[in-house]
């Protein structure tokens, strides 16, 4: 159970939900339909929401992400799914919080600049290493090696097993 009312949740998260969906789904009408689906699920599941398991924003995000994945599976099987969504393993709601994003920012700042750039271009922008190599004026081999180094350093800094 939560102290948020349905109206408060809609007011707080509708701009984030529609913006996230628009970045992935073609067409304003499709995006608005999906946004409605998200809030229909949010309101239906609200009595079961457990604040001790996840922040409300993380919970709304998880429903949004799953709704977008279902949309692609249902109606756009031929269309390529956003790479960050293609990993359809369950979202670990403990991992996703504003604090974890700040920790990632801090870990990225502690990396040598080129390694930070490779991680952002690869995992935020979804660019392949070949394109990153071209952008940075480096060979593919050099970028691949730095990418591995960056992952190793981040694993240590973020205490990832």
């Amino acid at each position, binding site marked *: 159970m939560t102290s948020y009312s349905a109206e408060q949740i809609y007011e707080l998260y509708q701009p984030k939900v529609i913006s*996230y969906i628009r970045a992935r789904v073609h067409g304003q009408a499709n995006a608005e339909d999906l946004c409605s689906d998200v809030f229909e699920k949010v309101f239906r599941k609200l009595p079961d929401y457990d604040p001790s398991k996840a922040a409300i924003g993380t919970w709304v995000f998880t429903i949004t*992400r799953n709704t977008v994945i279902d949309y692609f599976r249902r109606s756009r099987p031929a269309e390529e799914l*956003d790479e*960050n969504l293609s990993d359809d393993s369950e979202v670990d709601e403990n*991992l996703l919080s504003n604090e974890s*994003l700040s920790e*990632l*920012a801090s870990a990225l700042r502690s990396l040598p600049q080129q390694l*930070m750039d490779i991680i952002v271009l690869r995992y*935020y922008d979804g660019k392949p290493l070949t394109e990153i190599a071209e952008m940075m004026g480096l060979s593919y081999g050099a970028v691949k090696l730095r990418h591995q180094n960056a992952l190793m350093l981040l694993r240590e800094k973020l205490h990832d097993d």
Partner: protein
Amino acid sequence: MESKLKKLFDFQKFEDNADLRQVIDSVHARYSGNVTKLSLDDLEWVNAAGDPDMGMMNKDAEKKRP
């Protein structure tokens, strides 16, 4: 680690954490090349085909109007 990064950056696109946004913007600024960001005022002059020169012609014509 790769899976964790994908999930965190995907969540960032929803949550827009200000701290991480700064890091991302600093990276994008290094690779933005010669692309010039148009102001909202300038965007009004970009025609439907996205050709800013056409808009500038209209802007010049308006300036010449008495």
